[in-house]
């Protein structure tokens, strides 16, 4: 028993080291002054961070990325939540079709998707190629699988169909049933899906580069540009970006945990 536990601990330890080494390396490089022929940096400095935080382009890129994410994820929640709810509860026979549609983004490589989108939206009534709107549309599709799976699983676990039936028999309208019974119980599922989508979109490069490129510089495009000038600065960007994701994850998880302890609607 003891030896098998030791093996498990060793295995998990190795995995943690394997996952952390690149991050630790990046962190060290982002605060390294001189580091070329030693195991650890010879000197440390915060000048890369100071340089980064004094660069207006970084803030602009961050604001643009945030705008794209809030728009895409917000749009996805507003459109997909009622859609998935209606399909799951009232038109379950169409569920397969929705699932297939939601999984499509996995089957289309970003390059193929981007080329198709550019071709489609360069001419005709909706000329949005090269604008952030095309990117929002593409991001909406990119995060579809996460939003769909997360929300649908929450509805299934909840047995939403029966809860809506019960609420309706007690005098609630369909909308009241959704607002007072279903939504408060799937909010943690929505938060998890949103978090996954935000993390994915923060690090999205292919669509951003191909669809808008330098015309609407996002964080990833800024990062790619800085990669050519300074490795230290790039590391500082990556660490800043990871810290933000970590902060966001922590906040959402804390919120979810609090919701579980004190369910919504409690007195």
């Amino acid at each position, binding site marked *: 028993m003891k030896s098998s536990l030791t093996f498990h601990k060793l295995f998990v330890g190795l995995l943690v080291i394997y996952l952390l080494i690149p991050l630790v390396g990046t962190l060290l490089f982002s605060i390294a002054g001189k580091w070329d022929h030693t195991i650890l940096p010879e000197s440390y400095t915060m000048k890369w961070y100071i340089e980064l935080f004094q660069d207006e382009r970084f803030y602009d890129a961050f604001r643009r990325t945030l705008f794209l994410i809030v728009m895409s994820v917000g749009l996805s929640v507003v459109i997909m939540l009622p859609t998935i709810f209606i399909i799951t509860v009232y038109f379950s026979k169409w569920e397969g079709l929705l699932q297939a549609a939601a999984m499509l983004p996995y089957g289309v490589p970003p390059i193929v998707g981007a080329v198709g989108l550019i071709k489609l939206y360069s001419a005709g009534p909706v000329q949005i190629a090269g604008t952030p709107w095309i990117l929002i549309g593409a991001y909406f599709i990119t995060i579809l699988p996460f939003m769909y799976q997360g929300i649908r699983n929450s509805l299934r676990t909840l047995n939403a169909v029966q809860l809506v039936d019960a609420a*309706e028999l007690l005098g609630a309208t369909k909308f009241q049933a959704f607002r007072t*019974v279903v939504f408060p119980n799937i909010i943690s599922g929505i938060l998890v899906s949103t978090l996954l989508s935000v993390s994915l979109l923060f690090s999205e490069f292919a669509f951003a580069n191909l669809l808008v490129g330098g015309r609407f510089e996002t964080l990833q495009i800024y990062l790619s540009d800085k990669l050519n000038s300074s490795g230290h600065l790039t590391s500082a960007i990556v660490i800043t970006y990871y810290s933000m994701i970590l902060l966001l994850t922590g906040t959402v998880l804390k919120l979810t945990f609090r919701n579980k302890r004190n369910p919504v609607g409690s007195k």
Partner: protein
Amino acid sequence: MSYVTIEQVTKGYDNQLVLNNISLTLKKGEFATLLGQSGCGKSTLLRSIAGLEDVDVGRILIDGKDITDLSPRQREVGMVFQSYALFPNMNVFDNIAYGLKMKKVKNLKSKVKNMIDMVDLIGKEESYPHQLSGGQQQRVALARALVMEPKVLLLDEPLSALDAKIRKSLQKELKRIQKELDITTIFVTHDQEEAMTMSDRIFVMNKGQVVQSGSPSEIYTSPVNTFVAKFIGNYNVCNMEVFRKLVRTTELKGNEVAIRPEVLQLVSVGEDRLDLQGNWGIKGFIKDVSMAGNVLRYEVETEECAFHVDYLHHRGEMFEQGARVQILVPKKECIML
């Protein structure tokens, strides 16, 4: 005057009839049970009454009002689901108060408190569904439906997820509350014993039809066909030709004969107190003995077929496996089908 009327209700899914021309009526305050095997259509009929399923043909009336095309919220029926369907984000008080809040009822607090008192949940008002036992959750679901003072209470196998002891005590409690409020109740179950214990009237369903209706005693003692006989009372159902051969008579008519296992008697072969007055005697041997608590069940093999014989379990009175016996079949207890 009937209070609930189901008129020629028919419903199908994918060209298959789930409810086949069902008609039934209930009096006010009656406790009726829809009894049948899984897939017989009993839950679909209940959900049709609740408005959770549309019917293809037919009408449903409550208190003289046609509710066939009304939405569930307009029907004034209460329902307790098999899995209770309690709202996980609300505590006991809020769950029970939910319907009253939707209807913007005044004196909400006192009504909810009275109901909590009735279902014996005092002290649990602040608890959430996941903090309650199955029995307590069932009481909350019942209180939530009853507080709305529905015209008809629908119960969809509400006791099936509970263990035997709690189930028995809740059966009694449910019946007490139903009588106290004099509320017309339709109960769905596949458990014949539960149906017998609780109902004023039973509707036995098979393949989307009501095959027999009547009081528990009528249903148990006078099954109209083989299905009811086998489903309701573990009847011995024997082919008539085989039975005639066993009892050496040509008088009997019908296709099959049904005999309850508890009316049969066993005597040892050669015993001189054998009384064949009013009985037929069939020779056989004990193939198997099983015990179900207070009942001993013998499987007696005869020349042509096997019979089940139920005896109350008295100390020391037991036939051994393999013993040669004679089964006494009371002539008046044989039901020709």
